[in-house]
């Protein structure tokens, strides 16, 4: 949002001019009730640049303005020309300097009347009783008569020095009324012009007219009316002939009006309408004909900017208003993500064009231009007369000389040059990070969307050569794809990870990725697999491709590789599976036949720590697509057998239910478990009660098992009773 000038972003506040140097001025400026106005102090009218006298223009059918909206028009109303002037007089002045007061008032009235600016004269009196006498009233009447006082333009307000508070309120009331009537008059005056315009050919004049009306209504605080006018203005924009107006101007004007409309919706708490308006705005923007095939990056830059702006805008909306999120269009992250999409496309187009026109771009006179893109220049209002018509900032001594030489081709290369100077990656990363944060804060989480964004962030970091950051994101992403078995996408992510491992010289990660990429189910082409395989073998042989000027401590690397038990274990498994064939693997086996390594692995595998055991089984399960499933089950089953005497029965349970040997000998296992857990029955019953265990159903189905268990239970009556109590399964009751 910061890209826009303050005049567009902030709520417009009417400007009030204070003439003279009375101390009361300070009171007005400091008072809280006057915060709704902006004051400008002026010594005399000469110091203010008033607008020109309104001329009665004879409108012609062929009349076409140079642009649609003037850049300084809003600024003029907010900072330069007050809507009302305030002048202080003392009661003493009225009586003793009557002529001076009369001349003052008549001059001010004459000058400001032509420009439809109101006047408010504040007369300072000691107290309310001072003005009730006849002499005072007569004096006031005389002055009014002499100055031909027009009550529609001017007004008198009294300021009682004895009661400042009520005086301030009177003044504010008066100012409010005067400003409102002044703005209404202006709207009426502007609207009169409608009769002169022709809708078909002078649509741009209608755009301007309704924009002005909308702005005046906004100044009044009439947001509904303002919205109505702005919407009309926007509607007429679609009728503006593109032949007379450039695409850049159309986009910029539509953006300004759209921003105004959005702010009105925000003030009226109509957020859903704001979303609809934005969608309409984007559709309108896409319909604007492109400047030519090669100018596509301009259109993309604009669309991206719009999404970014709207996401920024939604950040002003309280979160509870946006939730519960009915659809994706109400999530801020969605807009940042969309902006990032367009920015990425723009980046790729610019990169292609940069390669294509490398020679011509090197010939562009760098000194001539500021390295800012066209839409950055547009928002710099000091730089152009009409919105959307930026002037080039020339730094040459003779700008005219340059302008003469310009051709269409020059324009294009100038624009392209500016684009190439723009840091696209930083922009894309900023947008993606914003989207990531917003989606992460959203509840319930859109885990996959977050993963997608994280993938794009890592890709962007990767392209920028920031491998460390890329790696950080990849680790998080690959987990999701791995668990959901989206192998094609996973392989894409792993290729990035592979390259990161190589660049960071993290051989452990590099090898891990290589192994995973070689898995049969992974969506990698056979040819690529062959290359990966040869890399793997050379890495194992420790003859991995060494780049020039690189001093790798091969001894240290060697040691590192020796510690890669886990990976070697995986290599073994892959080799053993029949799907992976080829003589090359025999070589790997030879390298893996190192007895020391195997012993190390076995030592780790046989660890008594339940935590390690659990991690190991989890690990096996996670990579289940790498290994033969039955092998994993047998391995974890063997581990279970070893650890059955452990006290923590629940942990063993985790391994048991998925164990093939358990399927065959359920009764034996359960007996064992009961025996182990003799003194803590509830634990075992909890396990049996677990529906996932299928224990009961298996007993029902397998007669032998059931009989043997029944015998066992009959022998141990105490256990049986507790079992009946604990097991609430209907099947079990049936057995009974």
């Amino acid at each position: 949002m910061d890209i826009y000038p303050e005049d567009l972003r902030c709520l417009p506040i009417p400007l009030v001019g204070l003439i003279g140097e009375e101390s009361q001025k300070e009171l007005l400026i400091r008072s809280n009730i006057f915060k709704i106005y902006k004051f400008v102090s002026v010594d005399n009218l000469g110091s203010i640049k008033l607008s020109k006298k309104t001329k009665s223009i004879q409108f012609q059918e062929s009349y076409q303005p140079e642009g649609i909206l003037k850049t300084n028009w809003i600024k003029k109303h907010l900072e330069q020309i007050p809507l009302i002037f305030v002048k202080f007089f003392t009661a003493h002045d009225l009586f003793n300097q009557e002529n001076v007061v009369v001349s003052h008032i008549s001059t001010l009235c004459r000058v400001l009347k032509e420009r439809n600016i109101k006047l408010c004269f504040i007369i300072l009196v000691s107290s309310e009783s001072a003005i009730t006498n006849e002499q005072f009233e007569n004096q006031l009447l005389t002055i009014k008569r002499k100055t031909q006082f027009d009550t529609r333009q001017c007004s008198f307000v009294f300021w009682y020095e004895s009661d400042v508070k009520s005086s301030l309120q009177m003044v504010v009331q008066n100012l409010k009324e005067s400003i409102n009537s002044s703005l209404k008059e202006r709207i009426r005056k502007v609207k009169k012009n409608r009769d002169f315009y022709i809708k078909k050919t002078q649509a741009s004049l209608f755009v301007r007219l309704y924009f002005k009306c909308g702005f005046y209504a906004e100044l009044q605080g009439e947001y509904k009316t303002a919205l109505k006018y702005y919407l009309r203005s926007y509607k007429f924009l679609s009728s503006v002939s593109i032949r007379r107006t450039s695409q850049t101007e159309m986009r910029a004007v539509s953006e300004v009006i759209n921003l105004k409309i959005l702010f009105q919706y925000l003030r009226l708490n109509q957020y859903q309408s704001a979303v609809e308006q934005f969608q309409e705005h984007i559709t309108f923007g896409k319909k604007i004909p492109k400047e030519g095939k090669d100018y596509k990056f301009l259109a993309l830059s604009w669309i991206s900017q719009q999404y970014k702006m709207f996401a920024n805008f939604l950040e002003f909306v309280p979160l509870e208003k946006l939730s519960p999120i009915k659809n994706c269009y109400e999530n801020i992250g969605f807009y940042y993500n969309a902006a990032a999409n367009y920015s990425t496309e723009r980046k790729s187009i610019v990169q292609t064009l940069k390669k294509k026109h490398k020679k011509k771009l090197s010939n562009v006179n760098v000194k001539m231009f500021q390295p800012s893109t066209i839409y950055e220049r547009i928002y710099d209002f000091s730089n152009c007369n009409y919105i959307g018509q930026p002037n080039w900032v020339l730094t040459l001594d003779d700008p005219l000389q340059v302008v003469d030489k310009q051709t269409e081709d020059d324009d294009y290369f100038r624009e392209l040059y500016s684009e190439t100077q723009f840091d696209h990656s930083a922009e894309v990363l900023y947008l993606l990070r914003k989207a990531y944060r917003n989606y992460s804060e959203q509840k319930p989480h859109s885990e996959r969307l977050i993963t997608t964004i994280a993938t794009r962030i890592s890709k962007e970091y990767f392209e920028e050569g920031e491998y460390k950051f890329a790696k950080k994101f990849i680790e998080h992403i690959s987990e999701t794809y791995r668990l959901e078995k989206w192998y094609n996408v996973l392989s894409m992510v792993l290729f990035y990870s592979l390259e990161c491992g190589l660049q960071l010289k993290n051989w452990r990660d590099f090898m891990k990725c290589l192994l995973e990429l070689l898995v049969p189910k992974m969506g990698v082409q056979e040819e690529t697999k062959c290359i990966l395989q040869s890399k793997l073998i050379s890495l194992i042989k420790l003859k991995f491709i060494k780049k020039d000027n690189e001093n790798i401590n091969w001894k240290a690397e060697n040691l590192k590789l020796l510690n890669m038990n886990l990976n070697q274990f995986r290599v073994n498994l892959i080799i053993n599976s029949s799907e992976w064939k080829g003589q090359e693997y025999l070589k790997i086996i030879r390298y893996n036949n190192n007895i020391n390594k195997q012993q190390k692995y076995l030592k780790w595998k046989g660890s008594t720590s339940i935590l390690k055991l659990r991690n190991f089984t989890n690990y096996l399960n996670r990579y289940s697509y790498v290994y033969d499933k039955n092998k994993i089950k047998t391995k974890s089953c063997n581990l279970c057998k070893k650890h059955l005497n452990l006290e923590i029965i629940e942990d063993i349970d985790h391994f048991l239910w998925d164990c093939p040997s358990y399927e065959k000998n359920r009764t034996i296992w359960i007996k064992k478990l009961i025996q182990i857990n003799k003194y803590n029955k509830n634990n075992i019953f909890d396990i049996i009660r677990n529906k996932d265990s299928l224990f009961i159903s298996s007993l029902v189905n397998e007669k032998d098992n059931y009989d043997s268990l029944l015998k066992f239970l009959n022998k141990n009556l105490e256990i049986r009773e507790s079992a009946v109590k604990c097991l609430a399964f209907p099947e079990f009751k049936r057995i009974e």
Partner: protein
Amino acid sequence: MISTFMIIGKDDVPLYEASFFNSKKQKEGSSHLSQFVIHAALDIIEEKVLSNENFFLGVVDNFNNFTVSAFVTTGMVKFVLLTENKNVDSTKAFFNDVYELYLKVILNPFYKQNSPIVSPYFDKKVREKFSK
């Protein structure tokens, strides 16, 4: 990017994928990006399923010029189509045709529920329906 059709199983595991190439150039590109976009759309599909009574959910997501349309069966098997074609009626008809084919596949006693669909007949028919 290329037009892609995917059947995604109950646990969001891809069961079937068909990429439709218009030219040789497209063939050179990979289907990674398409899958990537479809995977991202799964969250939105899950959200939409809750509020939609129909099998056909319409367009659920956009990516540049491409649209992602979805069709969810009662068994929560998702049919997702990533394409440039914005004609909703033709997409709906395509989904209905594929749904019929899919029913035939799951009626096959040799097909295990929620396992990848490898039937060449199914693949051929899906491609035929898409080219229509």
